């Protein structure tokens, strides 16, 4: 560190003048590139490119592997053929393979990717909202609420809204849980991060107990097995008609989060500082909370509760590209998608032709990682912090 006196007065005066300078008038010519972003931009692009490569590799594997394995060349050719509407590539593969890939595996891979990306960005935003990097989407109680909603429908056979009844019930269950968590956390004035987390944990515990109670008292012996899908998650139900809602939700949610990325950064500074830096903290936190809850609810509605993706992916991504949401959010969407496709691949190939619920895989991978992270953080920061 330099000594205070070694700075020339002239240099200090110049720096102070810089600090006083107003922004230059808007230039109509070339768009200004961020001089600041140049720091570490190469690294960010390299990391992003690697994740994209990994994502594509996992997606290809997802198309090839299954009860019928399809060679990479055929799988690629079928995808190109399908994407081009039949204009490219002459079919020299078996028709059954094309049906498997187009009807089953492409929607499944897309669903896994969309769910993974949604969980990743939701998790990252929730961690910023509650200013606790150890939080995840399940902390809101939304996941448990969605599962409970679905179980209520199955238990009492309330099929009133057609094929999507279960999904709608799951979504509504998630929103109801969220509203309650919100109300509990707000009681008595301000909604602090700690109250939110504690309210979410309490809500999750009550809802899980309720779900178990419904299953155990059910006259239907098959219910437990069907409920497993909601509590452990899976993409076995993937079909094209299931995709539009989660895809649109992810697109809108991610766009809104990216637009607010700078403000999300401010939340990490602490509430008082965020206010001093110009953020209406209460209102912003509420908006982001509802947004992530909707995204999580829709995710659970199509794939059940898949744990740990929203908890650990944000961590890994921050280690690689830093905590600035302008970079971390797109990266976590890609990383979440990659991880979930890979987890689904393991879930459906490890005891083939049977399938494991994908939540088991993500928990088996994510749990130990999380424990390692906790211990590492404790060492790095001192347990007192």
């Amino acid at each position, binding site marked *: *560190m*330099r000594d*205070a006196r070694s700075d020339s007065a002239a240099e*200090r005066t110049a*720096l*102070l003048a*810089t*600090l*006083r*300078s*107003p*922004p*230059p008038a808007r230039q109509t010519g070339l768009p*200004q*590139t*961020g*001089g*600041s*972003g140049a*720091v570490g931009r190469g690294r960010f692009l390299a990391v992003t490119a690697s994740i994209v490569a990994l994502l594509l590799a996992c997606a290809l594997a997802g198309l090839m592997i299954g009860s019928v394995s399809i060679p990479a060349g055929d799988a690629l050719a079928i995808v190109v053929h399908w994407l081009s509407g039949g204009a490219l590539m002459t079919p020299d593969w078996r028709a059954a393979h094309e049906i498997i890939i187009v009807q089953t595996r492409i929607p499944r891979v897309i669903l896994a990717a969309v769910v993974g990306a949604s969980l990743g960005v939701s998790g990252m935003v929730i961690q*910023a909202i509650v*200013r*606790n*990097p150890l939080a995840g989407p399940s902390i809101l109680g939304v996941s448990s609420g969605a599962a409970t909603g679905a179980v209520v429908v199955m238990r009492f056979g309330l099929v009133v809204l057609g094929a999507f009844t279960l999904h709608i019930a799951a979504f509504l269950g998630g929103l109801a849980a969220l509203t309650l968590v919100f109300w509990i956390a707000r009681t008595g004035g301000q909604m602090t991060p700690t109250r939110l987390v504690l309210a979410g944990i309490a809500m999750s515990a009550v809802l899980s107990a309720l779900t178990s109670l419904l299953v155990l008292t059910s006259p239907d012996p098959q219910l437990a097995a069907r409920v497993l899908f909601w509590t452990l998650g899976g993409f076995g139900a993937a079909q094209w008609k299931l995709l539009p809602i989660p895809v649109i939700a992810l697109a809108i949610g991610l766009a809104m989060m*990216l*637009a*607010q990325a*700078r*403000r999300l*950064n*401010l939340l*990490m*500074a*602490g*509430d*008082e*500082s965020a*206010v*001093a*830096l*110009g*953020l*209406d903290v209460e209102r912003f936190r509420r908006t982001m909370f509802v947004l992530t809850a909707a995204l999580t609810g829709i995710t659970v509605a199509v794939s059940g509760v898949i744990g740990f993706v929203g908890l650990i992916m944000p961590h890994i991504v*921050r*280690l690689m590209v*830093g*905590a*600035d949401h302008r970079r971390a959010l797109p990266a976590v969407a890609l990383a979440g998608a990659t991880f979930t496709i890979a987890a689904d691949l393991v879930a459906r190939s490890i005891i083939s032709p049977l399938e494991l619920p994908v939540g088991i895989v993500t928990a088996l991978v994510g749990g130990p990682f999380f424990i390692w992270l906790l211990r590492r953080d404790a060492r790095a*920061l001192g347990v007192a*912090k």
Partner: protein
Amino acid sequence: MIAPGRLDIEGVSVSAGEAPLVRDVSLVVAPGEMLGVLGPNGAGKSSLLRTIYRMSRPATGRVLVNGEDIWRRSATWVAQHVGAVLQDMPADFPLTVRDVVAMGRSAHKALLEPDTPHDAALIAAAITLQRLDALEHRPFRTLSGGERQRVLLARALVQQPQVLVLDEPTNHLDIRYQLSLLRFLRETGVTVIAALHDLNLAAMFCDRLCLMEGGRVVAQGTPEQVLTEDRIAEVYGIEALIQRHPRSGTLWVLPA
């Protein structure tokens, strides 16, 4: 800090539930002036400062920056005019020093607007002025208390405030950095209101002082007017000698 601003606090009271924290406080800080807020723990210094950066809304009274009631303007407008150096520290996330300093630009940026070379120049200038160049890419949470304090000051500087609020800015700092921080604040020419514990530093650097007790202003004026032996005995419950520093001539409070 494009130009120093004026701060008017008019009959401000703040309470938490039933308990009054600040009672009918009125203050004026002229452009470029430095006002030190003194008082024992629990006197209401921080609660008063909170009303200036729009953290807590006064139950009665108004806070005006350049004649504008801050509760009639947006949070963004206030952050463009008032900067704050506070005690809360972002230690949970792996933010680098530069990330933390760059946060100060937020209030000046539109949605989705990228950082411009102007932003980068401001951030670089603030980092150099606070002697943080070597730490720029270090995680904030690995810094010492004093280093963190300088980062938070740099963040407030890139906010380009006209009024700077500091809540016990010399905490965590050794004597050399305490002096260089206060000297630096004077050098910037920005209007400053700071809660300070050290009476001698306050007398040395502030144009005027404001002594608080139990949420009220007990005395206001130049250091000579505010720091008297009787008043220190009354407010702090200690005996002290007030003398002049033999070389600089500023007031010197010696607990006896």
